[in-house]
């Protein structure tokens, strides 16, 4: 299992399109992908679940993966968030 903590900086937060970008990437891997905000865990492969976290600019989140490809998927998502979803 691997996890990284990151603060979301994009002004618009994680609305529908950024959520989709996260989910689309997570779906490529067979491993479990979890996003955590304020101790609430969301399935990184579910749009509704990610949107449900209500991630706004300044939110501190943890990206966690467990299983095959865990390093890559966490790196990709963290990078996506760092770049403000302008991939």
């Amino acid at each position, binding site marked *: 299992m691997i996890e990284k903590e990151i603060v979301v900086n994009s002004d618009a937060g994680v609305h529908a399109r950024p959520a989709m970008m996260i989910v689309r990437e997570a*779906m490529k891997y067979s491993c479990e992908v979890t996003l955590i905000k304020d101790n609430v*865990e969301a399935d990184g492969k579910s749009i*509704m679940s990610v*949107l449900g976290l209500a991630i706004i600019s300044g939110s501190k989140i943890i990206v966690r993966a467990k299983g095959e490809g865990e390093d890559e998927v966490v790196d990709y998502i963290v990078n996506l968030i760092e770049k403000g979803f302008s991939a």
Partner: protein
Amino acid sequence: MSNVKVRYFIEGSGRIDLQLRLIAGENGIDKEILSGEMNRPGLALAGFFDFFAYNRIQIFGQGECAFLDRMPENEKERVYFDFFKYDILCCIFTHDYKPDNLFLKFAEEKRIPVFTTRRGTTRFITLLVHVIDEVFSETKTLHATLVDVFGIGVLLMGKSGVGKSETALELVERGHRLVADDMVIVRKLDESLLMGAGTELLKHHIEIRGIGIINVREIFGIRSVRNRKRIELAVTLEEWNSGKEYDRLGLDENIFSVMDIDVPFITIPVRPGRNIPVIIETAALNQRLKKMGINSARELDEKIKKWIITEGKK
């Protein structure tokens, strides 16, 4: 920590309507409720401030109100000054009583919300206890979908992509009600009651691959949704695994435990050609039957055992 603000008392939707009207101190409405306890401030008004539980919700019943009414005007300034020296959470007057303007002026200055309710004191306190119990109840967020099937709250779990949302959609089509898709907030309301609801933000929306996000309430109408439901059956959908033994008899009860509360639990294997919604409807009905004391599997088993004994004697 509850993170619940005084605002919740007037805005909490889908819950008990406390019938509160804000009459002063709107600027203090975002104060956090740290304790759900209440206090009748009669002694404090009379000038006795030892053990004054100021950080609790102050309830002014008929006694307190009569006391305020009889107080000579020239004393009010001093009494209110002393009273409002404390950082009071909020004041609630019952029986639709409205305190005098001086009281409201102090409350406004000190940012202390003042409410009035048409309800009587005892009845109001009973309702407030319910609301507060909910605020301070333990919660857990589950990656699951919750549907009310024939009055049984069925929690659908399983990996993403297994078809939870599609199953929920089909159940809605068949006249059942969606509570929440993909994210369920579960509250432990007492030692045996788990209440599930969706998040306020995503309420009644569902994501269906190929279509995208849809609003179930708008498409299927108000009868297709509900805001919360007691969880009485947990179902895991999983892809058919030929190496795994699935329950064929239903004699043993499996349990899914959430915050130390046990919920009957079944695993349904998904395979093309299996009509999952019908299976879930049947599981829900079977659960209702069990609640009424009828266990089909056990009864059939008893019948067979009896038959074996009588046949053996022939």
